[in-house]
């Protein structure tokens, strides 16, 4: 949508890469946590998972 405008930035690669790395890092860790939580839940007794 604003691709043309963004592409015109000086150092556009570095800027977009910085945002991309941050988004990927946060989202990747978030997904990893969610998956690990799911698999661990299977091995833990219900009384030890008490959040709602």
């Amino acid at each position: 949508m604003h691709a043309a405008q963004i592409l015109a930035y000086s150092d556009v690669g570095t800027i977009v890469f910085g945002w991309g790395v941050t988004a990927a890092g946060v989202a990747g860790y978030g997904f990893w946590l969610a998956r690990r939580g799911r698999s661990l839940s299977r091995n833990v007794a219900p009384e030890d998972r008490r959040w709602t």
Partner: protein
Amino acid sequence: MTTLTQTTDDTAPDGGAGAAPRSTGSRATRVLGTVILVTAPIAAYLGLVTSDPDVVQGDAVRLFYVHVPVVSLMYLPVILCTVASIMWLRKRTDGWDALASSSAEVATIFVGLGLVTGALWGEITWGTYWTWDARLTSTALLFLLLLGYLALRRYPAEPAARSKVSAVVGILLVPNAILVHYSVSWWRSLHQDATRGLDTKMEGNQLTTYAVAQGVFVLILVWLSIHAFRVAWLSLQAERGDLDVAIAERMADDDATGGM
């Protein structure tokens, strides 16, 4: 751009009321995750599209909106880890152990992203990705200390001994973070003096964009911290369960051989 909600089957369909969740998600974190999913693209739009370029830095200021929120928030999980480490040494409970371990993990993510975004921003504004000034050097040490902590946490050893060594390392985090924070005033550095929002002179739509980005990263920090804590907690319980099974098996073995 950041996907953080857990969308499916978080609540056990078989149990109804009172059933234990089958994941680390809860109603609060799902609401939080949804809010993040809505606000993060807004922050990205403001930062990458509508924010004005800077008079001196030009478009490089767009990296300010990710770098500054990340590095300003990295201190919170670092402090949390040290506090939890001290509390674990006093109370020796799984809760403090899980809090220490999960905060260190979140802190590693934030410090790591701070280093990466800082290097990228530095390449544009300073003309180099890295230089051995006090702020950068002390931050690199903090990152290494956190990596060491996470490695210790995964070392196969008797749980209490492992937690104890980890706690000692965890206590070192805050002194290192103090070094990072005051490095720019204690030593001469290439890094600018102020990084916190209050000291930074910024206005107009740059300030608005920064405020929104800072808010989004606060939410992200909270979401990650809650889930990381629950995962660490589950991991401790699972390990305990394994240990019980192993001990039971050995006792059964002993009984068996003893009976022969």
